[in-house]
């Protein structure tokens, strides 16, 4: 048996979410073109308790790595749901790398899709995810505030993939907002302010101002600076906010004016 064939077969057995059934192994052996002797040697591994133990160790390590990657979110999810979501993630070979932080965003996106919206645990998940996105960009992406001339109206901008705008909407005891009394816009903004997470913010997070919220919502889809004209009566204030959003890497340039020309 070649080393490659052995490793493919063994890693398949160890990564398999379920115990390897004899017919699955037959198909694997056929695909790897194992000789009769080689097949016999691996067959004894397939049926061994040692393989079950190795699979269990792998799953246990993966669980540990997932906890390191998403500690807040996994702590916030009810135990049953947490076990189920982790089981599903690990069965899909999640958290196999020794550097779980590198996989954290994928894990949190995976969890986020499975959480009720809105719910307190989903908010925790969104914040943890946003923090990772911001932290990933912080050391490597210089912010672009000094490079952008806001007078060049055909420069295209968009919300940075490393920034997140979110609203923490759970009530004081974790009640979802659907159960809260109707609030007018002002009351709502005071009770549930918009939170901005971006690489250039000291400490990573702060409240977003109203013009910032307006800009970030508009730039969820890339658009030229010229189109921001319609967003506010006070253009100067809007441009000031845009400069700040560029400075903290919450907004990024998609197409510069030069290229757009």
């Amino acid at each position, binding site marked *: *048996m*070649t*080393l*490659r064939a*052995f*490793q*493919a077969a*063994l*890693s398949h057995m*160890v*990564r398999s979410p379920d115990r390897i059934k004899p017919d699955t192994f037959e198909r694997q052996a056929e695909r790897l073109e194992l000789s009769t*002797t*080689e097949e016999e*040697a*691996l067959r*004894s*591994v397939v049926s*061994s*308790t*040692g*393989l*079950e*133990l*190795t699979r*269990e*160790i*792998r799953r246990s*390590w*993966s669980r*540990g790595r997932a906890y390191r990657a998403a500690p807040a979110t996994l702590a916030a999810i009810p135990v049953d749901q947490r076990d189920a979501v982790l089981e599903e993630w690990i069965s899909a*070979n999640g*958290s*196999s*790398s*020794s*550097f779980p*932080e*590198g996989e954290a965003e994928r894990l949190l996106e995976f969890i986020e899709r499975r959480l009720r919206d809105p719910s307190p645990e989903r908010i925790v998940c969104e914040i943890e995810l946003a923090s990772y996105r911001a932290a990933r960009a912080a050391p490597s992406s210089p912010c672009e505030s000094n490079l952008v001339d806001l007078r060049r109206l055909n420069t295209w901008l968009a919300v940075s993939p490393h920034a997140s705008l979110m609203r923490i909407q759970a009530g004081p005891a974790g009640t979802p907002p659907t159960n809260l009394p109707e609030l007018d816009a002002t009351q709502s903004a005071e009770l549930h302010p918009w939170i901005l997470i971006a690489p250039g913010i000291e400490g990573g997070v702060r409240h977003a101002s109203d013009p910032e919220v307006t800009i970030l919502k508009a730039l969820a889809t890339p658009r030229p600076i010229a189109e921001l004209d319609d967003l506010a009566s006070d253009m100067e204030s809007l441009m000031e906010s845009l400069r700040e959003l560029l400075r903290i890497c919450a907004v990024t340039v998609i197409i510069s004016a030069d290229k757009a020309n």
Partner: protein
Amino acid sequence: MNPTKTLSVAPRDAAAPSRVGVGFPYIDELSSALYQMGLLDFVEMTPETLCRERRPAAERVLELIPERLERARLSCAGLPIVVHGVELSIGSAHGLNSAYLDMLEQFQARWPFLWHSEHMSFQTVLDDDGKTVDVGVPLPLPPTVETVRTVGTRARKIKEQFGVVFLLENVAHYLSPLPADPQIGDEIEMLNQVCAAGECGLLLDLHNLYCNAVNQGFNAFHAVDRISLERVHEVHVAGGRSTMGFWTDSHDGRVPDAVWELVEYTLPRCWNVRGLVFEVLDAVAANLGVDVIASELRTARSVWTACTKPT
């Protein structure tokens, strides 16, 4: 159990490197006081724990994090270090993890080490699209001619690249019997042949050997007698636990008495040995506590002193 208990310390080779003594891994979660209590002669660093991984394209990059590196240097307070890697995957058929070697070069430039070591195992494979994927746990290599040639060639290159002794460690596993070539026979012979082909040393983990002996039903002392002990530069000990009918290499407690016996039997026969390391898993070290760790290190010191005293 022990076939030939009495043996005086083997005469040291005149050209043998000097002994260093008792070591312990660097564990960020532990109080730095442990490294400054006079219990240690050296520290074993796993530089990957000081890194973050980036994947800017298809390839991986391991970046040392300056703050973590600085904290580790402060904790170690001038003690010499050796490197014990976990990410090389030297036995992967598709190729080893070159990102680890690139990072290790940078690490060596900033913090030179006495020697370095890795596990004789594999932990990455190619998926159906030809992409490198992590298995999630290190797996053993089969005792075959191809394994000896592949790992031996890589070990020799690594030794030349870093200019210090490179060691390969015997691993514990629960997947016996592995398919073997008759020319190699078993894992002990594979270990000897790989180290000879790679012109490298051996990190003899006696707890790993003990696990395999218990689980596979062979005599650990007889196995030691078959190992090329002149290649042993470092010995590891650790604690384990019984799980699903196996003795596992869990690194979460005191060293079993049977393993200390094995150390007492083996060390006097390893005339090039330079250090004895007590290993503990990062995640359990804080719970185990400094007192227990210090107590095991004192035992290691007394065994080391008795077993390496010249006759």
